[in-house]
């Protein structure tokens, strides 16, 4: 949990077997340049491993990037794991996500969806405005 004035901590990863990682690395660089502390786990991470790492690293934000249409299953697994672990963090996703699926993903509990071509500033600003800062 980040206290006011502390650097926002973000963990990014790609799950599944698919490995298009240009986008997630660009986002990682942009968040780093915006002053956040970014941990990039890499590609082909299991959802269990991602959630475990997010909790271990005590991050404020967990982001997963997708390039193939398996995001619904993965998000549901991740949200379930976060709930079981009682993790209080912002879970966002990005990449090749169809517009028609966005409302359903939000209803599931994904905090925000950043489809391809989302301006980097929008991602930075969303995180700044929405992280669950500890009340001092």
């Amino acid at each position, binding site marked *: 949990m980040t206290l006011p004035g502390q650097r926002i901590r973000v963990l990014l990863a790609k799950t599944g077997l*698919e490995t298009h990682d240009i986008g997630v690395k660009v986002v990682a660089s942009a968040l780093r340049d915006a002053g956040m502390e970014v941990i990039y786990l890499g590609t082909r991470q299991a959802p269990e491993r991602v959630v475990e790492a997010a909790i271990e690293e005590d991050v404020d934000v967990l982001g997963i990037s997708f390039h*193939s249409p398996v995001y619904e*299953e993965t998000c549901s697994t991740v949200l379930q794991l976060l709930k079981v672990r009682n993790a209080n963090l912002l879970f966002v996703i990005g990449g090749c996500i169809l517009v028609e699926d966005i409302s359903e993903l939000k209803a599931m509990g994904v905090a925000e969806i950043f489809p391809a*071509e989302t301006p980097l500033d929008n991602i930075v600003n969303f995180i700044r405005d929405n992280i669950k800062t500890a009340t001092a």
Partner: protein
Amino acid sequence: MTTEFDKEKLEEIERHVKEWEENVLKPSLQKMPERKEEFLTRESWLPIKRVYTPLDVKDIDYLGDIGMPGKYPFTRGVQATMYRSKLWTMRAQTGFGPGEDTNALIKRLIKQGMTGLSIDMDVPTTICVDSDDPRAAGEVGRLGVSIDSLVDMEALFDGIPLDQVTTSLSNANHGSSVIYAMYLALAEKHGIPWEKLGGTIQNEPLCAYYGHRYNVLSPRGAMRLFTDLVTFAAKHTPRWNTTSIWLEAGCGSPVLNSGIGLATAMTYADALVEAGMDVDEFAPRFSFLTGVRLDLFEEVSRLRAIRRLWARIIKEKYGAKRPESMRFRFYGPSLGIDTYAKEPLNNIIRGTIATIASVLGGANAIDLAAYDEPFAIPTEHSKLLCLRTQQVIAYESGVGDVVDPLGGSYYVEALTSQIEEELKRIIKRIEDQGGAVAAIEKGYTQKLIADANYRREKEKYTGERPVIGVNMFVTEEEERPIEIMKVDPEVERRQIERTKRVKAERDNVKTQALLQRIREAASDKENLVPIILEAVKAHVTQGEIIGAVKDVFGEWQEVTVF
């Protein structure tokens, strides 16, 4: 030096240019300032001038640096007549579901004029995970065709005369030797001699660490499989391209990644020389793959520069004697990175420009990223448009009627030389890291590419790099929806069932014995291809075979730099 201009003439031109700068340019700039302070090429950020003259090409030696097409240093093309004799191979890369679904699609595209088969494999296949492996769930047959065993290969090529087509088995990478062995086994079943098989296998293990990351094995294991395939193929499949070196793997910038790709190609050449092959045995079957981007003049110059530099490297550094060894033959498709979800029909225009650049750059085979690529794999209709774009350019525009039509342009010749120098600098940087493998292990290559990707994407978000409909002339109007390819989840079930059945019905005692033999051969020096061939014929799957190789050589641990 055989320059085209004599000294006096050049001095006269120089005086003329100075006078023009003073009396024409200066007042013009005062009245109409230029749009930007500094102009760079769009894709690789190379500084360019406002106008080029004979002064910019005065040090270029026509005979030594440019020459005639089909002759060293091949700057103008790898064949004497290029498209006047044979148009480029028109591909329409496709694949989804089990083999029979893709088979039907391929047959329809052949009827529409597709001249080369190009098979896209699904993600599990590309990283050697069988469809019935739980890790593959959700990905089977989704982004390409699924190939686990020879049975899948048979379904994929059913009724296709393997001696009359050329086939690109793209994106099989660390599993290349298995897919290649399956193709050979299939030819045998069809009664076609291996010598008649023409095609390309990716077999480019190193790009899998910095490109799309379709890596499975440690670099040592991957290089062993690479060498075994090339040495085997040189003896048994003389028409087969044994590697397709990927010059834009991971995107980055075209010039940066071409330099990295050429350094990688040299690492392969070194490995083959070390394995006892002569350069003239392997180099003629080296082929290349490079995405072609939208800065037309930069791309044409880059492709010409690579052709010249590769010829020089193979001749001067490796001592090749046969002209066939020095030919940079390449497949030049447009890329998904140049397609956007906003106003997707604009992607057709982008693909057209890239395709013209690819033709003017002398590509041997071409394809386009379909306009719907930002959403999903292409529909049959969007893929057909990729073929139609090539056909209109080939038959209606006349761009292929003269060989290297941009050769001799002051700009293109100057930029070709400028890019050749830049490529040499990048190759040197990789060599200074200890070569392509060491540079990957240190994360050096990945960092170079990640930085270039970040620079490009940032420019899109700031608007510095215009993308029409995305960051420039953006409309608020709601867009007309386009058809998007949805792969029926049923295909996954069918594929998993088939692979399970194949595994249940084969002789599993034999399977275990074959896998053990693969482990033993991998620990020793025996060429793995003949044993892999025997295994695929016994319906051992790709996942199992590469799994056995992995037991010996271990896995790659990703270096996560950004």
